[in-house]
């Protein structure tokens, strides 16, 4: 039980933050599935990348492993490239809305 050996407010706030992130990821995923245009899906996927960065940092605090944040650095560096590539592609020839 990894939450049990945390000091008092940190364990509770880590549980609450995990619940917040789960709800946020589900809401963004609903927008990905439902979004009327392809641009809505791209915006929601971009938000999911930002939420994943937060989840990785949460895991780094939770499991006491500061090396996890290397993955967060990679997401912050290259996460926007997919978004830019998709939007340039859709700007040029539609790609179907």
């Amino acid at each position: 039980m990894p939450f049990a050996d945390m000091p008092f407010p940190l364990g509770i706030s880590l549980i609450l933050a995990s619940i917040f992130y789960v709800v946020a990821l589900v809401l963004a995923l609903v927008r990905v599935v439902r979004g009327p245009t392809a641009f809505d899906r791209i915006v929601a996927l971009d938000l999911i990348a930002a939420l994943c960065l937060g989840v990785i940092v949460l895991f780094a605090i939770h499991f006491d492993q500061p090396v996890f944040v290397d993955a967060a650095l990679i997401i912050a560096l290259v996460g926007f490239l997919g978004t830019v590539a998709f939007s340039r592609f859709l700007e040029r020839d539609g790609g179907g809305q």
Partner: protein
Amino acid sequence: MMVWIVSFFVLAGAFFGLVAALGVFRMPDLFIRMHAATKAGAFGAALMLLAFAIHFGGLRSWIFSLVIIVFFYLTTPVAAQAIARAAYRRGVAFWEKMGVDRLKESGEIPERSHSKED
């Protein structure tokens, strides 16, 4: 004392992530949704990284966290601007209650549906 600060930053970061997802879920229009997603999402990630740096301490953690925050705040507007430009040029519908289009009134973009260059 330090544990309380870290807990506050963790909760605030996750709360702003939830607010961003709620905005993406509930807002009526692509451009308003993007406003919620980029600003609140980046702010939530920055708060989580500050919590990480305060929790672990040390020079390496602070440098990593500040570098990630700087790069995230540099790359998020680039992605948002690319999406907004492409969506505006492809003619994505505005919210019907918005009623004003300053970019079309200014005449700098002559037509909204097809791009001539590139």
